[in-house]
């Protein structure tokens, strides 16, 4: 059961988006997020939705798979939309009863916020679905490397993220084992009483923490043995290179902006 949780899930497919340099993808996602919150008007959103659809098609990720990722945020979308629907002040009242007033502006606002959140999640999940976590952190390291000059320990941060990713499956396995061991000793994880259920987590968490610390200790020694020094410079096994695809992505971003500007001016 615990295996179903996929953090930073990656969907392997032979697509040009997968093969793109991670730096391009990270920058594109950032750019996408900014445009999403800057643009106004119906037609601009049509352009963004269309271009998102195009990227999804290029990435060869099944639409079903994409939509499944939206499930956990449905509640958030609904609450945001509802708040905007009822709270927005406006002149064109459509419906009014007691304290509830719905205005045309409210409907507009609600729809816009819902679309924005959904597009935001889809946009960022395209990045994580098409890029393995190691490549992603590698790309981030290079993009953030200017910060090293002002003393931000980027390499250490990236190493930490990498190790965390490496140990997620190991610790999940361990958790599974501990749950089984405690169940066989009579622990009750399915009690209806939420207080009891939370209490039942303690005998899972404590052994898990003990083992995680032991692993951390072992790993630290093993890393030292392999000459790891957090303060020293390291070379990199992985090398990223901008290719044709990245150039196209850049061109696409330019065209994207031009279209949005034209819409803004014309409409």
């Amino acid at each position, binding site marked *: 059961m615990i295996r179903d949780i996929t953090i930073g899930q990656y969907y392997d497919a032979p697509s040009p988006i997968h093969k793109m340099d991670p730096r391009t993808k990270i920058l594109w996602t950032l750019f996408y997020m900014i445009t999403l919150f800057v643009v106004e008007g119906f037609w601009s959103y049509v352009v963004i939705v269309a271009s998102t659809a195009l990227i999804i098609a290029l990435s060869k990720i099944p639409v079903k798979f994409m939509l499944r990722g939206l499930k956990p945020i449905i509640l958030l979308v609904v609450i945001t939309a509802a708040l905007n629907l009822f709270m927005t002040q406006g002149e064109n009242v459509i419906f009014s009863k007691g304290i509830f007033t719905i205005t045309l502006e409210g409907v507009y606002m609600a729809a816009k916020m819902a679309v924005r959140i959904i597009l935001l999640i889809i946009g960022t999940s395209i990045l994580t679905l098409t890029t393995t976590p*190691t490549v992603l952190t590698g790309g981030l390291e290079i993009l953030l490397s200017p910060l090293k000059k002002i003393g931000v320990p980027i390499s250490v941060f990236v190493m930490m993220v990498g190790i965390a990713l*490496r140990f997620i499956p*190991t610790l999940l396995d361990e958790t599974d084992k501990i749950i089984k061991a405690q169940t066989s000793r009579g622990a009750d994880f399915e009690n209806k009483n939420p207080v009891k259920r939370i209490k039942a987590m303690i005998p899972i968490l404590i052994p898990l923490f003990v083992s995680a610390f032991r692993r951390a200790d072992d*790993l630290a020694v093993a890393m030292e*043995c392999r000459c790891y*020094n957090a303060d020293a410079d390291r*070379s990199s*096994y992985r090398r990223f290179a901008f290719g044709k695809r990245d150039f196209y992505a850049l061109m696409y971003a330019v065209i994207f902006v031009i279209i949005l500007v034209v819409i803004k001016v014309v409409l």
Partner: protein
Amino acid sequence: MNIIEAKNLIFSYKSNTHEKVVLDNLNINIEKGSFTAIIGHNGSGKSTFAKHMNAILLPSGGSICVCKIDSKDEERLYELRKSAGMVFQNPDNQIVATIVEEDVAFGLENLCIEHEEMHKRVEEALKAVNMYKYRKRAPHLLSGGQKQRVAIAGVLAMQPECIILDEPTAMLDPKGRREVMDTILSLNKEKNITIVMITHYMDEAAKADRVIVLDKGKVILDDTPQNVFEKEEELLSLGLSVPHSTELAHRLRKSGIKIDRAILTPEDCAKEILKHKGNSYD
């Protein structure tokens, strides 16, 4: 030439009330190209000794030199660790990266090896341990024996003079154990890498050129496997045993069957028994 030279090596834990001596005046020299097994009961100090060979622990007294580098020499610490690679018991807790080949490259990245050279060495190391076709895999999807071979490749890529293995097979199933043992033996015989292996499997120790028995931080026996495993009573009194075939040969001898040479492997044992029956072993 000696790769490792321990002179009057002492290591002790001190607390306010008492002092616990773990290594008691050890004098051990390990020759280049040799395969040494260190055996001993729990608490005999064998793992502590292993950690001294890589400057993870520093001696309380005496000294230990690895490739002529004193472990107390902080300036040459990384040089020492590069020369003496270390493989630990738990295969999960020594793999750093999420992809096999990147893990093998970890040590090389730390040594700032240049890009092309790094790829070449990673490939060679993975081929040497027979894991090249798994280079793109995630480590948690490998078996214990495979993970341990990846860990060996990670050390091997750093081109060490000597590899120290601290109970590398203790957490593996019999198949994984055999894979790791075969890898270790081929590195020793074909690449002439000095091996120091700490183990509590006597059958593995029997494959070494030399067996050192530690007890309470002291060297009790230090000889060829044949001579060490001759002394069954002494080993038993230290809480150790002998390889199964050696034990069988001992028992046969006791019951009057004439077996004169020291037996270490099942093959030798079978040969002797067949010889006794007047057949030859093919």
